[in-house]
């Protein structure tokens, strides 16, 4: 389990993702604050959707070979589509707004619906890579590479500088357009500058983090900050602060509870909004102080809330040597077979240990690793299927495992493992949920148990098979190192 302090360590494998998330949390609320104050918040919802359609469109063209000479990574192609669609959409909406016919909200609603429909259609048109596109549209900040983080820092650093440098002009053009005209000679330039910054944040943010998270970061922190402040300076500062808190807490909960980052961040943001409106009943100044105090308290308690899990006990510690190592049960809907390119399989084939039609699975890898580690802990390992070939994998459920073991005339201790979730995402990490138990068959007592539920980082993996192999290694290390 990671604590806040561990997550904050730059050497933490997911630190770049946390950094990216925090940058979004810091900057997006500043842009979103103006969208809310100008009562154009639906633009903040529609533009990310339009950007998403741009991503799907770019991938479709790429798949058809029309962008084959463009080079660059998938994200670069998606970014180009996102930018193109965002600025085209903004231009079109601006033109229609200028003409002044029809309802502004109606235009935004129509644009939102159209963009959503086009996104799905572009995905359907694209016969390959649907999973990749959906993954990009989901916007897994957790899978950001260091290069992408640098792009993110560059773009959002520029947006931050723009919002801070021109804060007076943006405020005046948003709050009192007549005075802005008298003092600055017009509003058009500042309107365009503000919407360019918004468009840039949204277009790049969507490809890095997905439409949902970007809309959440744009809107929720300013909404939470609004009832707690009196002035504009404190409004922008608190919005940014709450955005960063939303990013931190969301990230922490996502890693700790193995939840998808985008929805977790947005849920945390909504909680902040409810909390803020509750606290605002006290008074705005003390409300802001209470809000920050609560956040700090939760942060401090999270820092100290390290839960140390007990490692697998030594054989002598439980006065037993003989141990039945059951097959690992696969309760996912996936086969979890490793790809043919897995180098481990090739090696095994070369030395004649396995036949060429045999394909190793994650369950095999995990069991082999467990066997090695358990033997080092002093156990004499026996395999149930060697006693009776009818033995299949035992479930993690204690009662069921004991019953099957007794029916198979086993006695002593049995070690069970069950994989409930195993999802390799973008080769950068594997989301796992695996349960382990050490059970005494005679009385059904559970001597040790462990449930591992988290995203296991696999940064050096170059393919799906290697990611699974690295994840198995990390899990077994967790089990035996404590």
């Amino acid at each position, binding site marked *: 389990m990671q604590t806040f302090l561990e997550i904050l360590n730059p050497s933490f494998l997911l630190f770049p993702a946390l950094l990216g998330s925090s940058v979004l949390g810091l900057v997006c609320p500043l842009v979103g604050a103006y969208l809310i104050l100008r009562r154009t918040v639906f633009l903040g919802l529609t533009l990310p959707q339009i950007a998403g359609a741009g991503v799907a469109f770019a991938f479709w063209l790429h798949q058809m070979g029309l962008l084959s000479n463009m080079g660059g990574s998938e994200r670069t192609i998606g970014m180009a589509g996102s930018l193109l669609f965002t600025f085209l959409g903004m231009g079109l909406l601006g033109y229609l707004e200028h003409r002044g016919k029809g309802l502004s909200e109606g235009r935004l609603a129509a644009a939102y619906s159209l963009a959503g429909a086009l996104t799905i259609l572009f995905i359907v048109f694209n016969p390959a890579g649907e999973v990749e596109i959906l993954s990009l549209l989901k916007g897994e900040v957790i899978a950001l590479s260091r290069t992408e983080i640098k792009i993110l820092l560059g773009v959002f650093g520029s947006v931050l500088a723009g919002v801070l*440098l021109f804060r007076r002009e943006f405020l005046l053009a948003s*709050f009192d357009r007549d*005075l802005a005209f008298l003092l*600055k000679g017009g509003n058009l330039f500042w309107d365009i500058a503000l919407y360019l910054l918004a468009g840039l944040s949204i277009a790049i943010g969507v490809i890095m983090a997905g439409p949902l998270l970007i809309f959440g970061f744009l809107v929720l922190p300013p909404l939470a900050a609004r009832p707690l402040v009196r002035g504009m300076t404190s409004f922008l500062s608190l919005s940014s602060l709450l955005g960063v808190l939303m990013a931190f807490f969301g990230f922490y909960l996502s890693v700790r509870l193995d939840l998808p980052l985008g929805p977790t961040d947005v849920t945390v943001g909504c909680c902040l909004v409810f909390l803020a409106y509750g606290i605002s009943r006290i008074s*705005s100044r003390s409300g802001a102080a209470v809000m920050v105090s609560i956040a700090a308290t939760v942060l401090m308690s999270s820092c100290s809330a390290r839960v140390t899990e007990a490692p697998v006990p030594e054989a002598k510690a439980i006065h037993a040597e003989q141990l039945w190592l059951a097959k690992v049960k696969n309760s996912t809907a996936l086969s979890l077979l490793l790809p043919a390119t897995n180098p481990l399989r090739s090696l095994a084939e070369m030395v004649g240990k396995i036949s060429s039609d045999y394909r190793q699975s994650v369950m095999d890898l995990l069991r082999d690793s467990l066997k090695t580690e358990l033997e080092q802990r002093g156990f004499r390992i026996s395999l149930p299927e060697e006693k009776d070939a009818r033995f299949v994998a035992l479930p993690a459920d204690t009662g069921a495992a004991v019953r099957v073991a007794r029916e198979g005339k086993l006695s002593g201790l049995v070690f069970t493992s069950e994989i409930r979730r195993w999802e390799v995402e973008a080769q950068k990490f594997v989301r796992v949920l695996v349960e382990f138990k050490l059970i005494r068959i005679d009385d059904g007592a559970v001597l040790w148990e462990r449930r591992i539920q988290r995203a296991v980082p696999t940064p050096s993996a170059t393919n799906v098979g290697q990611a699974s192999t690295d994840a198995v290694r990390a899990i077994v290390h967790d089990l035996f190192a404590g």
Partner: protein
Amino acid sequence: MDEPRPLVSLRGVSLGYSEAVLRDVDLTIRPGDLIGMAGPNGSGKTTLFRAILGLLPILNGSLERDCLLSDFGYVPQSTSLDAIFPLTAGELIEMGSYGRLRPYQRMPVEEKEKAKKSLDQVGLSHLAAKSFFSLSGGQRQRILIARALMVDPKILILDEPLSGVDQDSRTAITELLIKLNREDRLAIFFSSHDLEMVRTVADKILRVDKGKTWWEKEGPLSS
């Protein structure tokens, strides 16, 4: 004694949006003038202000200004401002200095001093840290006047400054306008639908009704 050059003069001006709201407007504002404009709601008072401020093009006639647009201190109706904005009274007054500041420039000490002085002038220095929209109607109007003073105006234009204001604030605002005009020789052009109030405060009264304007002593022009 020679009259000072007009700051604003309108000759035979028609103004409006798709069609004229006011026709044949003749108006001259000179330094030290205190002019009140009286007329019922919807008679075109705000339209005239917007034309003078360059926010609305005129349809006919001539409009000349012997000052910059940034020399106008404009006080809109406080109800026209959106209460969703979190602004303290101090922040709102500082907006008056934005025309003199470059985008990236920190607010200089002298501007902060000026903001403080403007607040003192309207007698509300104790409310600088308060939320603007939490203030009473009268206090809000006085804060908006302080913002207009922060501009260093040659002309102060006030759109219905006494609308939705309690009696104490009405007195405070009218006294303030007279003081600014008499002591600082500031040209003031304000509007109200309350003719009696305009008569009490203004030296010259422009009446507006049914698309026409006339000076009170002269009576309405026949069309």
